[in-house]
């Protein structure tokens, strides 16, 4: 690749680099901006001047400020923390997780990392900095307004952790069931050349294109009255589906099936069918061949598909807003609730803080699985 002919002229390199830098700013700016808004008092957060939003004079005057020392040391800590996440964390996870449970290891590893980060950054550092500031003189006076009160309000007073738990339950359910059901179907479809398989795929595609609002509104009366409808069959055990996380999981899995089986089918098509045919010659049934031969090599594709399922379950708004009650509500409809009801400006900034909080797990997820996404896609999940 490094031959003379492929070496690039400087102008092209600069142009490509500049474009990339521009794109990165564009990609990160709106998200970074709401993160800035979330740590200001309501008056600063919605101030007209960008400078006021960044420096937060009102927030600072009310006693929540950062000094030069805080900022310098905080950024240093942040830099090393992020670097550590990219370099040492993957190695540690690989070292400590038992073979075969690498995914689980990652989940535990990233959760521990997240908790440690929050503890140190919001727990230990502020008191250390406070001590430093008191002896530092002019460098120790606050210059930047910053408050975590909205995060405290959201997570502690409004009990946002409940929504977080519900989100985790729904998302975990969606990912596991989607992948189990989808892997089987994807494999079956990839190995069957029949017309039925083809039409099933086309049908799935049409299902994928359906507007969700039509489906979801159709569910509501059935879900609410399910206890009455199912009584002749199940007797008094018949459940009210409305408000049940597992019912929502079933709906989301179904909505997600078309995409999952398409992804996995193309992935399985790129695993040479000689592999399982050889196993079948040795006397395995299709299921055994699937389990012994295919399962060990399918993980890159499954992880990539799983990430898309995760995004769908985690980000869904339409289904969860309509079919879950307050006790089982997930995070996205809970946040939308802050905006849609009659709100105050404080509510809105709290909603912004909640919105930033729910992107944090997505951050971690992408950090951890970034390489798997690319390698999974490269391995063929998108050739079809």
């Amino acid at each position, binding site marked *: 690749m490094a031959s003379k002919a492929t070496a690039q002229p400087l102008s092209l390199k600069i142009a490509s680099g500049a474009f*990339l830098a521009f794109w990165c700013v564009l990609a990160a700016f709106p998200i970074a901006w709401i993160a800035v808004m979330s740590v200001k008092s309501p008056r600063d957060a919605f101030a007209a001047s960008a400078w006021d939003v960044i420096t937060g004079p009102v927030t600072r005057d009310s006693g929540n400020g950062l000094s030069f020392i805080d900022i310098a040391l905080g950024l240093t800590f942040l830099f090393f923390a992020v670097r550590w996440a990219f370099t040492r964390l993957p190695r540690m996870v690989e070292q400590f997780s038992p073979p075969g449970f690498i995914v689980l290891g990652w989940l535990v590893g990233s959760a521990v990392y997240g908790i440690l980060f929050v503890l140190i950054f919001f727990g230990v550092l502020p008191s250390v900095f406070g001590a430093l500031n008191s002896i530092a003189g002019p460098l120790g006076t606050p210059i930047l307004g910053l408050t975590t009160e909205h995060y405290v309000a959201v997570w502690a007073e409004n009990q946002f952790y409940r929504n977080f738990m519900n989100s985790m339950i729904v998302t975990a359910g969606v990912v596991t069931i989607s992948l189990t059901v989808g892997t089987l179907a994807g494999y079956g479809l990839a190995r*069957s050349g029949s017309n039925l398989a083809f039409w*099933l795929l086309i049908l799935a*595609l049409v299902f994928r*294109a359906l*507007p969700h*609002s039509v489906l979801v509104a159709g569910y509501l009366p059935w879900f609410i009255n399910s206890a009455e409808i199912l009584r002749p069959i199940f007797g008094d055990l018949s459940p009210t589906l409305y408000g049940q996380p597992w019912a929502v999981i079933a709906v989301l899995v179904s909505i997600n099936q078309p995409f999952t089986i398409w992804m996995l089918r193309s992935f399985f098509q790129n695993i040479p069918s000689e592999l399982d045919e050889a196993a079948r010659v040795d006397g395995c049934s299709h299921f055994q061949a699937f389990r012994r031969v295919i399962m060990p090599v399918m993980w890159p594709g499954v992880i990539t598909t799983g990430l898309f399922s995760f995004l769908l379950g985690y980000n869904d708004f339409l289904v969860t807003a309509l079919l879950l009650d307050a006790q089982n509500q997930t995070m996205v409809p809970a946040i939308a609730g802050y905006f849609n009801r009659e709100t105050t400006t404080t509510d809105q900034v709290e909603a912004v803080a909640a*919105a930033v909080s729910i992107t944090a797990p997505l951050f971690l997820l992408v950090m951890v699985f970034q390489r798997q996404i*690319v390698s999974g896609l490269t391995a063929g999940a998108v050739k079809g």
Partner: protein
Amino acid sequence: MKFKTFFWFVAPSVFMMLLFIAAPLVSVFIQSFQITQPVMQQIEVETCTPGFLTQTCTTEIKTVPVIDGETGRTQTTTAWVGLQSYKNVLQMDKFWAAIGSGNWGDILQIDFWKALRFTLMYTLVTLPLVVGVGLMIALAVNNAAKVLRGPVIFVSLLPFIITPVIGALSIYWLFVGDGILTAMLERWLDRDIAMFAQAWTIELLIYFYRVWHVAPFAFVIFYAGLQTVNMDTLESAIIDGANRFERLRYVIVPHLMPLIIFIALIHLMDCYRAFDEIIGFRSEAYVTSLQWLTFDFLTPDDAGNRAISRAAASAMLTMIGIVFLLILPLRRTWRDHKGGAH
């Protein structure tokens, strides 16, 4: 693979899709030809409502549904009305009147056609942009130094993974009222700007949001594709004297073609049912989409009325549209299927 084995492999997946997608779809299809209404009666009702300190009572004739004594539910009648609901949605009489009188613009006063215009334009305008921007980022990242790639890919993926409602809102805040970017534009152009006061600026913002949100998806898939470009072909192209652009045009793009079609397919489907951005940008007054129209028919008003039949009809019309859009890319899949892949 024997049919029986095949059946057991796909059964769980197919069952779920039939139960939660196909069954509602069939019921929507039937509803689009029916109208179910409560049996109404007119009765005189005295209603007392509070003022401050004293009550006011009014007696008026009200139209209310009849309640069945036995079941305790409202009596309803269901009638087959053929294509009436479709007519109500399409409003063809107004459509032809507008064409007849030469005032083509009047067509866009009709909700359905207005939504269709936007949805189609939205889908077709953003498609090349998403593919183009995605490809450009992929090439640029592929070009970047190895150390930078990790962080750059991470930042690039952010707009795609962020919850759509929140992504749309974060852009909305930057521009609404004297949002900081609007204020910046105002200072730069030295004039008063209101981004949400006319249709075309809102539409531009929505296009921008879409490209911002989906281009990373295209990027990561193209980037994965670029890792498998055949080096031999590329080198022989260089020996043949192909310049950079020609190599892109004749080697890389054909290699990525299946991926481009994949992106196009996904994009067509997702864009065509645009909904989150209408809510996020609060653009209902100026710009609406087909799914929003269906949603709006289904949203009950204070009195609990919903236009279920019209919603069903508009959903069916949306479906027909998407099938048309998908036929082209799908012809290739059919050929592939016939060509083997056993």
